[in-house]
């Protein structure tokens, strides 16, 4: 069973996203001499950072309960802001 799990873990799956060639070239030059060994590695790193930030933000916006948000929207409508 454990071996099966290990086997599954090794099968990290990838997909392809497209970026403009010009941007690809800029990144390739940018990472020369840095710890990044490929453009894909760099892009993954940056995206993880951005995604984490966005997820955190989403969580924060969810910190306002739906009920509270509804009340705020009602007030904003009443005052003519929306």
């Amino acid at each position, binding site marked *: 069973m454990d071996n099966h799990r290990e086997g599954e873990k090794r099968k990290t799956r990838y997909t392809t996203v497209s970026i403009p060639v010009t941007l690809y070239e800029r990144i390739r030059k940018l990472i020369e001499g840095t710890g990044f060994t490929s453009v894909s590695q760099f892009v993954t790193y940056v995206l993880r950072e951005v995604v984490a930030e966005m997820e955190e*933000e989403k969580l924060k916006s969810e910190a306002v309960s739906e009920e509270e948000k509804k009340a*705020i929207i009602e007030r904003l409508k009443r005052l003519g802001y929306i």
Partner: protein
Amino acid sequence: MVSRPHGGRLIDRTVSPKRRERLLEEARELPRINVNESIAADAANIAHGVYSPLEGFMVQEDYINVLDQMRLSNDLPWTIPIILDVDPEDIIGVNEGDDIALYYRGEPLAIMRVEEIYGWNKKEYAMKVFKTTDPNHPGVAKTFKRRELLIGGSIDLLKDPPEPFENIRLWPKETRVLFEARGWKRIAAFQTRNVPHMGHEYVQKAALTFTDGLFINPLVGWKKPGDYRDEVIVKAYKALIEHYYPKEVVVLSVLRMEMRYAGPREAVHHAIVRKNFGATHFIVGRDHAGVGNYYGPYEAWEIFREFPDLGITPLFVREAFYCKKCGQMVNEKICPHPEEFRIRISGTKLRKMIMSGQKPPEYMMRPEVARVILEHSKPFIGEDEA
């Protein structure tokens, strides 16, 4: 997306209606401290997250850090101490760890947990915050009149102080929902204590050109004699927006907070506060929050260099003037013509015109704005009122 609150979390020290009932009962049994309008406004601003991450009035460690380092004790940028001053006789029998009730206009406003009672040196405060101890400076004069001790500690706000501009007063929680509802991701905030002239309109529209929305957030509350009255500022902005701004890209909302006239330090404070409202950009004017000749014209720009971690982008918009050759409002970066063609819009000159009942020329002020100001019999705060 809108800015994260300063410190990562929007503070909420308001209480639920159910808890309020209980706390109101408790407040009547507690030692009572009467506070003035500015302190009441600060308490409401703390409770509604305008001053996030502050949860109360500053304890000594934060106070000293802010004076010396322009940072809170957790290293977050913060430039103006938010303090509660009392006289020793106000707190006879009050010890650290006690709860006290803050009263405003005879009504319980907040309950405060007294974490620390400490002394302060007003001259040192004035020198560090205002860069002067000259009692002619309105902020210094006000500081010297304050009480002798400071109390630090968290608060729970029982109810909002009365707000004459309730219909255009939004809290950070509300502006954040509003900006999101409007789909704004880049929001330029504009701080003001003045009626708008053509120079203001120019910088606001310059900022709006590359952002999604403009958040005009005039200060209401204590200001020095000779400044415009709150209702005049509000009416003037309403007139400007009605006639000259696309409504879907502007939000006008007042903020009750006293002017300190602390120049560069206050400019950073203004930016932090607008970050908490969700703004991503903050317009920093020439001699922002300055008064007289106490600060250099661009000192308020320079101070921002010390805060790479502020979390809101300052927009340094150059002073606008009317160029007779260009035939429009411009600034020195985009106008090649010599000084003789340039007409500077001086606030002092405008005030003099308005005081004498004269309508300013249209290159200085929109006629609709001038009209609402001139309709007021007393558009300025009197010497005996501040």
